[in-house]
Each structure stands twice: as C-alpha cells, then as structure tokens.
C-alpha cells in the first residue's frame, strides 16, 4: 500500500520568487521547531554543566565530553552513581516488557482485528464500541485496582505485573490498527483460500497473515513505542530499585538536585534513541497504520 504520490493544494508549478522565499523561510522554521529541541538535548549531553551555565551563551559547546555518558553507564565513579547505575538495568527491563507486550499484542490483537475486519457477527457493534471506549480510557483510573490486586498476587515490583498492566492500553489500539489494516487487503484473497479447501483459520494463518507484514510492523512498532515511553504506571507499581523501567529512572534523576542537568540529558538522550530510531526506520508503515486506524471505524 504505497502512499499515493502527487502534490496538491497548489504551488506545484513555477513559484514567483516572493512566494519561494516565504515557503523556504517557513520550511526552515518548521524544521528548527521539530528538531532543534532534541538536537539541543544532545548538545547538552556532551557538554560540561559549567559551560551550560556560562554567560554569554554559546550554541556550540566550547568543550566536548563523553563524561556524562561514562557516568550514567557506570564507567566512572561520581557522587550520584547509585542513581545512575540503574540506567542500564532499567533499559533492560524496558526492553523485556516492551518485547513481551508486543508479542502478546501481535498474536492476540491481530487475530481479533482480522475477525472485526472480515466477519459479521452478533455483538460486533457493541464490542467495537467497548473497544473504542477502552482506547479513550484514562489508564490511571485502572491503576488503584492494579495496585491492590498485584499486592494480593505478589506482582508488585515485577515485570510480569507491568506486562499485564500495559496490555490494558495497548491491546485496544492494536486490535483497532490491525482491523483497519486488514480492511485494506482484498477479501477475495480469503475467499479463494476457502474455495481451495482452507478453513477460516487456515485462510487467516496461511494466506492473509503472510502478506500482512506492513500491518504487523505498524502495530508492533507502535505497541513497543508506547511501552518503552510509558511512565506513570511503572512509577506507581514498580517502586523497588532495580525493578522499574527507564522513564521512572530518568524522572528520578531529574528530581535529584545533586545531579547535573548535563548528566540527566545524557540519560534522556540515550533513553530516547531506541524509540526514535524504531519510529524513523518503520515510519512508512507506522504512519499508514496509525492514520488508517484513527480514521476508520
């Protein structure tokens, strides 16, 4: 499903010089608005705090250093190494939670999305509305319940608990995105598989799923991104050191007065990088999947 080419809305002929100047000025402004803040995070992460505090201000750092990264990776000793030492462990936790939730979503959510795209059945409209509602639900309202039940089950401060809690806000999205994706695959494909003697499940598993790569990539990458970036649930449920994910650790460092901003910037940049790379690599599929999933009912 390649994005349709063609440029509309005007201005696709020769532009007069004046309007070209306006256009390029606007483009530059948009590019700066989108990237400059993130680029500045990188600059601060390779600077010394004393140079960030120095006035007059310099856009280009007078000295470049990797010390901030050495500190958060535990390669050098410094006064707040206790907090910083949690960085790599929490990245590992984030990775595990993200991968397991993504796997569960792809297996369970995709199958449901397929049924919603293809079948007519009693209760379809109602259950779709319920799904839509769960998609709009404030996850925070569920957390007191998770807190008490996980306490009873011994799932507080475990990654299993986080996986369960994360399915609450990812699964409805995945079902929705996959439903929209399967609607773009011609139904004749399944019909001919049925004619060839497949049953419904075989038609889905052996014929439709193998050509659904782009949809699976969209749903999977989006789910992983949501998990990797989630903060509030992990902050509340996993409070014991070493059991939580990356965002609460970064936020925790941010709350410490004795840690330099440049060090926190390094942890923020390092923590953001995997999600940014994931999104940029799979952007084509993600953009299609997400826009279709939002627009289609």
């Amino acid at each position, binding site marked *: 499903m390649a994005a349709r080419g063609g440029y509309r809305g005007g201005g696709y002929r020769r532009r007069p010089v004046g309007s070209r100047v306006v256009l390029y000025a606007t483009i530059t402004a948009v590019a700066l608005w989108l990237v400059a803040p993130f680029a500045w995070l990188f600059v601060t992460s390779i600077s010394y705090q004393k140079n960030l505090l120095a006035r007059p201000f310099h856009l280009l750092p007078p000295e470049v250093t990797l010390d901030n990264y050495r500190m958060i990776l535990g390669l050098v000793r410094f006064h707040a190494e206790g907090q910083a030492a949690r960085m790599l462990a929490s990245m590992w936790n984030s990775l595990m939670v993200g991968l397991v939730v993504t796997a569960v979503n792809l297996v369970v959510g995709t199958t*449901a999305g397929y049924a919603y795209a293809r079948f007519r059945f009693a209760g379809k409209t109602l259950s779709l509305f319920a799904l839509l509602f769960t998609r709009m639900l404030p996850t925070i309202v569920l957390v007191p319940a998770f807190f*008490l*039940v996980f306490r009873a089950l011994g799932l507080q401060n475990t990654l299993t608990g986080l996986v369960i809690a994360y399915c609450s806000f990812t699964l409805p999205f995945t079902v929705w995105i996959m439903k929209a994706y399967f609607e773009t695959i011609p139904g004749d494909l399944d019909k001919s598989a049925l*004619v060839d003697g497949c049953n419904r499940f075989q038609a889905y598993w052996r014929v439709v799923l193998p050509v659904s790569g782009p949809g699976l990539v969209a749903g999977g990458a989006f789910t992983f991104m949501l998990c990797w970036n989630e903060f509030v649930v992990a902050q509340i449920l996993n409070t014991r050191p070493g059991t939580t994910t990356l965002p609460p650790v970064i936020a925790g460092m941010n709350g410490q007065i004795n840690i330099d901003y440049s060090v926190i910037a390094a942890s923020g940049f390092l923590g953001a990088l995997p999600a940014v790379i994931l999104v940029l690599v799979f952007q084509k599929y993600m953009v299609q999947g997400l826009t279709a999933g939002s*627009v289609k009912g």
Partner: protein
Amino acid sequence: MKTRRALSESAVAWLFVAPALLAIGLVVAFPLVYSLWLSFTDVNLLRATGPAVELGALRVPLFRWIGARNYTQVLADPLYWDSLWRTLYFVGAFVAEATVVGFAMALVLNERFPGRPLLRSLLLVPWSLSRIVVGLLWVGILDFEFGALNGLLLRAGLVDSAIAFFKEGWSALNVLVSVYMWNQAPFATLLFLAGMQSISDDLYAAAEVDGAGYWRRLWYVTLPALRPIVFLVLVLATVNGFLMLDLIYVLTMGGPGYDTTTISWHGFKTSFTFFKFGPGTAILYTLTALCLLMTVVYHRLVLARFEPEG
C-alpha cells in the same frame, strides 16, 4: 466447492476475538469495575482484615461500602473545582494550539520542495519521545539558569534578565500547554496530510480555472474536504488533553502552589501521594465519565462521517 460448514460465521468470529476480549476483560473491565467499587468504599491500605473476595490464595479486599461519601467529599473541595476549570482551560488551549500548528505544518509539508521526505521524517521525532524526555529537554531550553532560550535572549539583548518560565502559575500552565503541543501536534499533522492527499486533483484544477488563488483554494476546497479530519483531531486532542499527567510530573509537579494542578494530576496525587484510594478513584472516575462522553462524540461525529452505513 467444498461445503464444510461445521461452525456458523458468528461462532468462528467469536473464536477469533475471544482471546483479545478475554484479555481486555481481565486487564481493563475488571480493574475498571473494581476501581469504581473502590470509589464507594473507605479504602484503608494498612488494614489486612475485613470483607474480601477470596479465590484460593488470592484475596482481593473489598473494604467498607460508604455510599457516595467519597464523591460528596471530593466535590465539596474547592481544589476539585479549581482543578476542573484549570483543566478546561488547559484542554481548550492545547486543542487550539495542536490543531492550528498541526494544520499549518501539514500545509507546509503538502507543498513540493526538495527535502520534503526528510522533513516528514523529522515530524515524527517529537512524537516518538517519551514525555519524560520531552519535559527534560524543554527544561534544557527554558531553565532560568542554564536554559538555551534564556541564553539566546540575553545574548541578543532582548531581555535584561533571564525569564523564570515556571515561577509564576499562569506562565507555567501555558508553558505546559505549548510543550505538550510540541509533542502532539505532529500526529495531527499526519492525519491532516492523509486527508489532504485524498482530495481529488480535479477539484484544485477546477478551482484554478475559476481563478482561485492559494488562500481561496484552501478555504473553498481543502478545508471543506477535511472537515471529518478536523473533527477527529479535535476529539483525539481533547481526550489527550484531559489525560495528560507525565509532563506535569517532570515540569511542575502541579505547582507553583496548585497553579498547574489539573483533574488528572489531582486524582493522581490523592491516590498515589496521599494513598487515599477512595477519594482518589472518585476524582479519577469523574475524569472517566468525561472520556466516555468523548467516546460517544467520536463515535457519532467522526466515525459516522467516514462510514455512512455506520
């Protein structure tokens, strides 16, 4: 043609959706109902005895039913109403900013120019960041002591002393709105762009023949065709505005004073800073009711427009 109709279509469909609906029932419906129950009880996290549902080793405490007392207590608190009005301002300002900036960026990205694919990729950068990182990087720009914006303004001589963006409540609230907009507007842009690309070229050609310039084409062709997308963006931004929590955590913690305390932050603090689950879930449930209302709006206004048959 083989006819093996062992199961009706409905039964097969339910087999397909059952795992997902069961999982959602366990991780969404059950906690949702349990939280609702909690909002009508006097939750005491230290008490180990009392009524409970016991399933083998699992013991889910039920606490004592006190009727609507949590709700009357919460609604009698002026802080609740202050937070509600503040939330409404926050949501209104956020929706306006995200929609306008999102639309403006879509107009730029809909033009043809060298480097357009690159700019479209860059669009996804703010959106793919964790809100913790979003807050963090704006601290690096707005901070009173080391912020880059203050540094630039001082150096250019535009201000005499650094601006304290988070010191005063009104300014802090509006900074929160704009930072959240920076993070969320790109998604609105994606939706607008998808809509713009599905508008037929013929319409623009016809408008051009009629002598319509850029702005007239925008007003008479682009905007009417995008009306459903505008609705969609408005609804999604409204819900996201009501739910925002994490940026408040990194940037303001609800302060100074209570000046950036929204309903969701008020519910979060009551539940998890003071561990008053009864009043806390009551506050969060009023928020849930607002989101249910938005779901109905989304269903009626947005989805119905894309799929006329419903």
